[in-house]
């Protein structure tokens, strides 16, 4: 009795807090999705049958796939230097990862506007050099969204990659070298396969994060390449259709839940090996 009352005193407050502020209201969202504007599963049917919503889902998946590929590749290269480079290389890479990591999503999205918009740095320079007569449209389209999101997510991909590169058994690399493998061969046939769990982990983290992205697509997509999260915002605040917004949220939450469960299984299997 004494044990369990202490237990509740320590663990209880945060759990109560989250149940009251998060779990119960989320049940409210589920209720919205099946009662507004009328009871039933109509909103789910509408969401999955509406070509506009399906376009947005499809676009979201496409952008997330591109961002995942870009962010994991970019992160792999910098992590390689961060983990195995010379002390100077390590310091420079660490600063280039940490500084953007601590800067807010708004500032970073704005930085890309400053670079990519019609009157931004890139277009101004290319035009003053006479290479372009008309500005290139680099932003307020899917390209801008992909660039901005990749930039945001690279630091998040670095951490899982770094841990798999640090935990790797150095002797295997030495053995490959001792048996006469060249640098390229050691990298592609030994090093990369050995860091596969890190690559998968980083890919899942980036993909799950990217699915719910809202601010970067809203600013860099300029309303033209709407992703799922922005669609929810629009359905709640601009063309009020709370039931549909809630239904899309529940679908998104379920999708992320499935991916996370897959990730947990992966981790558990990796641990048991």
């Amino acid at each position, binding site marked *: 009795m004494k044990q369990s009352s202490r237990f509740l005193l320590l663990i209880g407050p945060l759990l109560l807090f989250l149940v009251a502020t998060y779990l119960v209201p989320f049940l409210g969202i589920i209720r919205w999705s099946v009662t507004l504007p009328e009871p039933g599963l109509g909103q789910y049917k509408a969401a999955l049958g509406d070509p506009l919503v399906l376009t947005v889902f499809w676009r979201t998946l496409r952008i997330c796939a591109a961002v995942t590929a870009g962010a994991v590749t970019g992160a792999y290269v910098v992590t390689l230097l961060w983990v195995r480079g010379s002390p100077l290389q390590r310091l420079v890479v660490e600063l280039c990862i940490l500084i953007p990591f*601590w800067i807010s999503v708004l500032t970073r999205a704005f930085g890309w506007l400053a670079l990519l918009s019609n009157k931004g740095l890139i277009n101004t320079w290319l035009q003053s050099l006479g290479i372009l007569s008309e500005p290139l449209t680099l932003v307020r389209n899917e390209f801008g969204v992909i660039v901005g999101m990749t930039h945001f997510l690279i630091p998040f991909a670095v951490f899982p990659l770094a841990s798999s590169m640090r935990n790797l058994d150095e002797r295997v690399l030495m053995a490959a070298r001792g048996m006469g493998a060249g640098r390229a061969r050691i990298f592609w046939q030994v090093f990369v396969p050995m860091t596969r769990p890190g690559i998968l982990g980083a890919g899942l983290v980036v993909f799950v994060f990217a699915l719910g992205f809202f601010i970067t697509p809203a600013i860099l997509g300029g309303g033209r390449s709407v992703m799922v999260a922005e669609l929810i915002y629009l359905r709640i605040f601009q063309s009020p259709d709370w039931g549909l917004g809630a239904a899309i949220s529940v679908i998104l939450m379920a999708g992320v839940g499935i991916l996370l469960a897959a990730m947990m299984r992966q981790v558990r299997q990796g641990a048991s090996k």
Partner: protein
Amino acid sequence: MTVLRPGPLAATLAALVAVFLMMPLIAVIPVSFTPTRYLSVPDAEWSLRHYRALIDNPAWAQGAWLSIRIGVVASVVATGLALLFSLGIWMLQPRFAGLLMGLALLPMVAPPVVSALTLYFFLITLSKMNSFIAYDTWAGVALAHAVMIAPFAVVLISVALAQVDRRIDLAARSMGAGLFTRITRVILPNIRFGILTALFLTFVLSWEEIGVTLFITSVNAVTLPRLMWMGLRDNIDPAIAAISVVLITIVVTVILTKAALERRRARAQEKA
């Protein structure tokens, strides 16, 4: 060992990625000095008008002050709750620790937009009962931020606890120390650094939070990120470039100072 160091090709590619990472942060600097009222690159004339606007327009200072207040309240609430929770899990090792941890981390792993909608639902429901912790009030925002940042505090404090040697706690217990004494005299001094880190990180996360804030505020509780968002949406206000330069300068200064201090400490340890 030399063979296993990254070669020039890897170094070149990494340098390109590093440039990619820093480029947008550097690009805001010239834009912030533009003399025009729209986003552009100054060519002949450089102007400080957008920095002056940050001072002349009281909205910026008000937004920053509101964000600081919300950040302090939210990070103290979140870190406090997370500390109790993590201590409970560490000391008592309950059977469903994994499940309880999963629940505690939910707001961190759920898509931010779903959390935003959930907290919007929560706050408009509360608005019907009181006008203090409600939609579009500073207390409502602080509460919502506390929900969003608490999981990060749980992670940091649990990591700090995992490094504490259980035997010192067992020793204290076997010598008759009660739960309260064990926590305040034995465990807390050992995870001091973790708690401070949690406070700092959660404050920063609240300070720059925008996804949830966008859903739960309109015209009264305008935090600094919310104000920036309004300047970014339709006609891009170059004052955003000026405030961005200020924010980037703060982050870079803190990170460089920390790196320098760590280096100096490492050197002092080498000598000793």
